């Protein structure tokens, strides 16, 4: 009898315990608990050198608080001294536009266009005395040898596409060349090239006709989902070990003119692109625990974050038509 009473008492106490414990806890929490604003004010630098093109503008900004909307104007960082150095005495001085952007205006012992296989070093001295540095070594010049439309699934060549080189005086005419009229999901578009000394290849995809209708037929997507489709997209960094890249149809959403640019990119661009999901990075959580994919991007910027990268580029344009 004593034993039975004892058992009941223990069970009763156990029940009390499990009900009392949770009542003292709440699942309500301040969203700011989820943030740790430890890096607010860090300098963000961005500049990407493209081989054969003029030196690009350099953009400087400061990071904002994670619990506040990002205000680009407020974050802009004017008043810095920005220079790019190359070789033993090459130097490019940048002009401050007073809006956080800086443009190259003085080239000393440096060609005005970005050279292949060359190291460039960016030095930024902010008005508050902070210094940000970064280096990039440009890849070799790169061009696609053949842009081809293949049969699907036999992969036989249906026809080559015309390129911008075929229209040196009127590049816009390329989009209307009969060879560059593509029917959505009819055949496969493939770029064949000789690989160069680059960390990876990134494909930039631009739908040039704003407002053109969707070419995809996706009843399973809501209006909200469709609104997420952007006219500017890019691929994750690709190895392209087989010396060709094939455009997946799921990267095309709209009718009208499209421009595809393939970049052979340096290590800095590659590391940024593969570690920022919005850049097509593969860090989307495959493998590992749920929620573990929120990892710090790889920046290669001393004293700040951002990217000072380089690439060489080849491009094509074509017109997308809906399926009949």
């Amino acid at each position, binding site marked *: 009898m004593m034993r*039975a009473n004892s*058992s009941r008492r*223990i069970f009763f106490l*156990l029940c009390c315990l*499990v*009900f009392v*414990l*949770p009542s003292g*806890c709440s*699942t309500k929490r301040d*969203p700011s608990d*989820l943030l740790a*604003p*430890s*890096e*607010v004010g860090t300098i*963000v630098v961005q500049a990407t050198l493209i081989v054969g093109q003029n030196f690009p503008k350099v*953009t400087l*900004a400061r*990071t*904002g*608080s*994670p619990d506040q*909307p*990002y205000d*680009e104007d407020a974050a802009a960082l004017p008043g810095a001294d920005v220079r790019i150095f190359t070789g033993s005495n090459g130097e490019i001085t940048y002009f401050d536009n007073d809006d956080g952007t800086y443009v190259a205006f003085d080239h000393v012992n440096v060609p005005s266009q970005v050279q292949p296989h060359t190291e460039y070093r960016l030095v930024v001295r902010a008005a508050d005395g902070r210094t940000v540095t970064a280096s990039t070594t440009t890849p070799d010049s790169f061009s696609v040898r053949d842009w081809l439309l293949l049969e699907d*699934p036999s992969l036989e060549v249906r026809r080559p596409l015309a390129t911008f080189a075929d229209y040196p005086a009127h590049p816009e005419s390329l989009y209307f060349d009969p060879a560059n009229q593509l029917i959505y*999901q009819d055949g*496969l578009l493939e770029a064949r090239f000789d690989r160069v000394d680059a960390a990876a290849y990134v494909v*930039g995809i631009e739908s040039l006709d704003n407002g053109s209708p969707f070419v995809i037929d*996706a*009843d*399973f997507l809501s209006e909200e989902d469709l609104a997420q489709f*952007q006219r*500017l*997209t890019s691929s994750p960094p690709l*190895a392209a*070990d087989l010396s060709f890249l094939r455009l997946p*149809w*799921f990267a095309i959403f709209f009718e009208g003119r499209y421009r595809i640019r393939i970049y052979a990119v340096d290590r800095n661009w590659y590391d*940024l*692109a*593969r570690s*920022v999901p*919005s*850049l097509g*990075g*593969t*860090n989307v959580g*495959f*493998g*590992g*625990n*749920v*929620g*573990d994919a*929120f*990892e710090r991007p790889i920046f290669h910027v001393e004293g700040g974050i951002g*990217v000072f*990268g380089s690439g060489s580029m080849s491009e094509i344009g074509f017109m997308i038509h809906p399926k009949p």
Partner: protein
Amino acid sequence: MRRDVALEPAPFSVPTVDVPGTRTRPREGQTLTGYVELPAKQLARLPAVGEQDIIRSLQLLPGIQSASDVSTGLYIRGGGPDQTLILLDQIPLYNPTHAFGFFSTFNPGAIKDMLLYKGAYPAPYGGRLGAVLDVSNRDGNRNQFHGQGGVSVIAGRLTVEGPIRNGSWVFSARRTYLDPILNAVRSDSNEIPSYYFYDVNGRLNRSLSERDNVMISGYGGKDDVHLDLDVGSYVDIRWGNSAGTAKWTHLFGPGLFGNFLVAASEYRSDTEVRIFDTPYRVSNRLLDVSAKGDLNWRPGRGHEVNAGLLASRYHFAYDQEFNGVPQPGLDQTPAAVAVYAEDDWELSSLTAVRAGLRLERFGKGGRFGLEPRLSVSRVLSDRFRLKAGGGGYTQHLQLVSTEAFSGADFWVPTDVTAKAGRSWQAVCGVEWEPSSRHSVSLEGYATSLRNLVQLDNLRSPDASGTSTEDIFFTGGHGWAAGVELFAQRKTGPLTGWIGYGLGWSRRRFDEVNQGQTYPPKYDRRHDLKLVADWKRRMWSYGAAFLYGTGQAFTPAAARYTLVNPANGGQLDDGLLLPGAKNSARLLPYHRLDVSVTRHGSLFGMKADYFLQVFNLYSRKNEWFIQYDTDDPETVPKVVHQLPIVPTIGVNFEF
């Protein structure tokens, strides 16, 4: 001389007696640290979600955690699920999950018992850095035909067993019946997949002679998901395990017997996705064919010597194709050999020592691993026992796993580009049995981990390298340490336990968190488990309460923006910059599960009708933080785990 005697059953009446449970492997329990032996029936009585699951029940023990309410992965003493060896009738199962990890492959009706070594496991086992879960199928009833089954809200199961000449057989099957429900609610306006899983278990035991027994055991299971999205867009995923074991046990003479087995285990998954006519296909297969021989010799003077040899041949095949272009795959057939010997020696009536050595050779190039194992126990008084144990452990196979979707899990062997994972464990504890029905144990453990790997999530999807250093970040270090208190009431109308764990776990990789040490997500400082099972006449009541420190997560440290260099487009209006990895904590996790069972009858059969409620007070436990950067106004979103989930069903026997 040996004489077999058959006893005739004869009924007689006695007053109600209280029979304390006895361990079927008393030596294991007396000598080893971190050892738990659990009958499947005991685990099956515990509250469940949707379907009884004995792996989920293990998560109610101290020192064992789950990653989430929807995961059956075992995180034991600060280690990941890949660091636990899971055996079914002595052959590894490589992906023992159904329903994307929601359920385990172990049909509770088919399982006899589970031996769990939470750490410092003995020499007969190897191949994992942390723990071992050794599951045995039921032997089958040698006396009469018997059946049992169960019906829950999502699945039905049936087990039948009976005698054969000089032996027994058992067959068990389980299948979900969600398909008709899913079909009924599917329409043109919603995309609900079709889904089912099934598993079957079978076992045959037979005595060939007075000295020879054979056992043949098999398992097969499959999950199948199909989702039609639109014309030219669908998802089709199938995965499953199959395993078979044939074992011969021979009595060589007094004090010497041997077990010899051949076994095979296969895991395969096939995924085919087509989105807007762009196809992606991935096929993954792991085949493990093993032969094993063990000798058990009792030469006297308190010695029990075990020695054995295990030879395994693996076939890893990973094959994928995107948009008609073959992607880098894996096709390797490494071999492994392990030999071990151990002596379980009762030095005196008070002291026992179990010393063992295991030697492993794996893969091309023949990398060796030498693994000493030692356990010591000392009786301090009638009721107190002191235990200590430790050893070295090696792991050559690495799991690429996704907590949210275990169907795509695959294993890869460590090759010559990286060292095999290595751990050293030390455990010590004290046991106190204040009465025959109560026991209390206190254990401390420490584990050092070297040569860890972590999937390199950032590599290019078409990168050709498939060596270990191509796929993983290698050379990681880590450690785990903690203390566990386990107080158990084993017999009587009220049984259950109170378990408390205090633990720390850390990892470090050069490529992760800027090379700084960080806690893994499952680092759990406090871990409290209260389990009670109360029988009263025709009713049984069960309750389980869990409380744990919130999981670690990475908070956002700042907001910034960049332009996509590939197209000049502005990225999201304010990317979030992660702070130090896992430097913040979710809210503490707790929940209460309860169950009520009415023992009765169904069409003349003995039946148990049960109602189980998972998360009775519907605590909104946090699962992970989702950072949405599409909208600059959006604050981080907390994704919660399962709310209250009631389950009803019936188990029956005939």
